[in-house]
């Protein structure tokens, strides 16, 4: 018995020794619940697939919290190897030249096979610089889609299999739902992301000059165009007539939908799993509605979510490990699994094709909508993404102005003019701070 225990402890010591020899790679992320489990599982699988490196994922709080922690750690010379940053932090990370190692360079230096063409353009474009170099590694990407409660449609005498395609049809359906006594007809998550950023891309309208900021930091917001004003005016009109219930700036609206309170919802495609688990009614997932009189609509939608940034100041050996890990994450098998189990879109074309060959989409209707919407047309300068400095504040300004319109305090035109003016101040400050 004693001998056994002794042996066991010896084995433990030996293993600990082996673990010491491994190079640890710190990964700070913001994935909770099932998503966090999945990420941990991937790290474990990677660690078991080789002996040289050990990826250690650490949950560091919400996206802004984790980013703040990493900034503080970087200033103290203690940054993690990999940091998960949400899409609105992209410009901040790109401008921090000394703080990050661009992914394309990391892969090249580590001699890790890497083909930027293998990634979905609508996804990779968001994280690619103007010269076509991929700077961060897209991990979890989603796009807003349109959810419909089929039971509510049936009750209102609407065809549950035919969701509105245009905002005109949407209005007609909304009026019928209202007339049938639906308390909350329509709500939305992420108002700026859905109704300004994706509205613009979906209608091939610029969000800002300089290709939405991708071509240069001297960009200006253009979200006060007549089309934008008209769209926000329409929302305000819906709100006044009781066809639209504002749900908040994040995903609070999703609960209003799956509880059955609201009949229609626009929110992230990544909400699908959660809605499926909670909704006690059949629902459909559809393309975002569009205005059919705006030329070029529907174009393609843009992504949200987060990407992995590699932080500077680490050893070359550990960068080899990081490159291997990113290569591991890009494998079609893993990406297909990520897509089908989470609702995030696959980041490589091979993974998308792999899932397309199975019967997954037939068995889970609606799960392909996000991919189809992102790839609806080849992305234009207006629809490949956006890159605005300090967009955390920029988005907040847009949301404040939308809220002012919905509350009836402002008209859409002056509100969006103010959003542009205030947003541009932020952009100029960012430009000055990142010369």
């Amino acid at each position, binding site marked *: 018995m004693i001998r056994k225990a002794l042996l066991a402890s010896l084995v433990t010591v030996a293993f600990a020794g082996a673990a010491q020899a491994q190079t640890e790679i710190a990964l700070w992320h913001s994935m909770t619940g099932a998503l966090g489990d999945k990420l941990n599982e991937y790290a474990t699988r990677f660690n078991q697939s080789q002996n040289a490196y050990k990826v250690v994922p650490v949950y560091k709080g919400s996206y802004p919290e984790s980013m703040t922690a990493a900034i503080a750690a970087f200033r103290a010379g203690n940054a993690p190897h990999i940091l998960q940053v949400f899409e609105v932090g992209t410009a901040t990370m790109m401008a921090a030249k000394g703080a990050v190692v661009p992914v394309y360079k990391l892969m090249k230096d580590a001699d890790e096979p890497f083909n930027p063409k293998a990634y979905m353009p609508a996804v990779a474009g968001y994280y690619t610089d103007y010269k076509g170099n991929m700077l961060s590694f897209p991990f979890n990407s989603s796009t807003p889609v349109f959810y419909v409660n089929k039971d509510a449609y049936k009750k209102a005498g609407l065809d549950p299999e035919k969701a509105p395609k245009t905002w005109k049809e949407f209005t007609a359906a909304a009026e019928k739902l209202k007339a049938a006594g639906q308390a909350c007809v329509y709500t939305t998550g992420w108002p700026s992301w859905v109704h300004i950023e994706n509205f613009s891309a979906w209608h091939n309208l610029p969000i800002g000059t300089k290709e939405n900021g991708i071509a240069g930091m001297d960009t200006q917001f253009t979200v006060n165009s007549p089309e934008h004003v008209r769209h926000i005016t329409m929302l305000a009109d819906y709100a006044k007539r009781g066809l639209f219930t*504002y749900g908040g700036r994040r995903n609070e609206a999703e609960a209003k939908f799956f509880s059955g309170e609201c009949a229609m919802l626009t929110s992230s495609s990544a909400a699908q799993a959660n809605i499926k688990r909670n909704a006690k009614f059949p629902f459909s997932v559809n393309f975002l509605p569009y205005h059919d009189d705006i030329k070029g609509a529907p174009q393609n939608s843009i992504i949200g979510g987060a990407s992995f940034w590699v932080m500077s100041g680490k050893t070359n050996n550990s960068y080899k490990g990081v490159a291997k890990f990113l290569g591991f994450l890009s494998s079609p098998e893993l990406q297909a699994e990520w897509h089908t189990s989470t609702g995030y879109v696959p980041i490589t074309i091979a993974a998308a094709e792999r899932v397309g060959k199975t019967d997954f989409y037939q068995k889970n209707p609606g799960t392909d909508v996000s991919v189809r919407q992102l790839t609806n047309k080849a992305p234009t300068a207006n629809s490949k993404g956006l890159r605005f400095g300090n967009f955390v504040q920029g988005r907040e300004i847009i949301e404040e102005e939308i809220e002012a319109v919905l509350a009836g305090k402002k008209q859409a035109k002056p509100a969006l003019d103010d959003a542009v003016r205030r947003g541009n101040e932020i952009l100029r400050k960012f430009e000055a701070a990142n010369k």
Partner: protein
Amino acid sequence: MEKRVVFRSSWLPYLLVAPQIAITVVFFFWPAFQAVFYSFFLQDAFGTQSQFVGLANFAELFRSESYLNSIRVTAVFSTLVTVMGLAVALALAVAADGILRGALAYKTLLIWPYAVASAVAGVLFAFLFAPSVGIISYVLRGMGVDWNWVLRGEQAMLLVVIATVWKQISYNFLFFLAGLQAIPRSLIEAAAIDGAGPVRRFWTIVFPLLSPTTFFLLVVNIVHAFFDTFGVIDATTQGGPAGATQILVYKVYYDGVKAADLGGSSAQSVVLMAIVIALTVVQFRYIERRVQY
């Protein structure tokens, strides 16, 4: 005769106060100095580039609509919290002071909420008043009130004021009760014999004699509303909607921590620092002198 402890050794007293001084320097003076320092710089988020911009951060603050709005919001918020908190606490203290039976139970119950952390108080009220699932929202909707503080600024303000006041009442109550009990019975009895009714007695005797307590609480409550309400706001409205509940302290946090604008955020802290210093001066000069009749 004043009692004094005399240290023979010349270094021992310094050694004894050293820990306290060290804590003050590390956690108060150093960060304060850093805030002042950074307020003159424009930096990118990671601090890899830094330029001296003089007073530009301050100039920008007072040009910025959202900052001016934040000042207005803070003024409204702290006035509401202070006035409501003091009024309700005083009413409760007067009522509790008159109770003979079961006084301890009433007092304990009234003091209880003070033990609740402000973040918890915020979450509690956020649940009760949640637009779609809150029980009070349900009742309000039944009464025909369109309750949605996610969109309506004045309702959001009301919510954070209620949550803050609820928590602060206990503290005010304790001081008022102590103040009331310190008022000599003989004065009140004399007034009663002269034929003054309870209301008259309150306004002409009790209230003036309570004024030192009231003044002290006034300053403490303003400071509380300015600085200690972060938890309530972060747990409920997070400054929204449209900045309707974004008080100065919350804006410092938001701009510095979430939006990574260190220069602007530091400039705001420096302004806040000036406000605290002013409030402290007021408190020391006037409270020490005592408001007396």
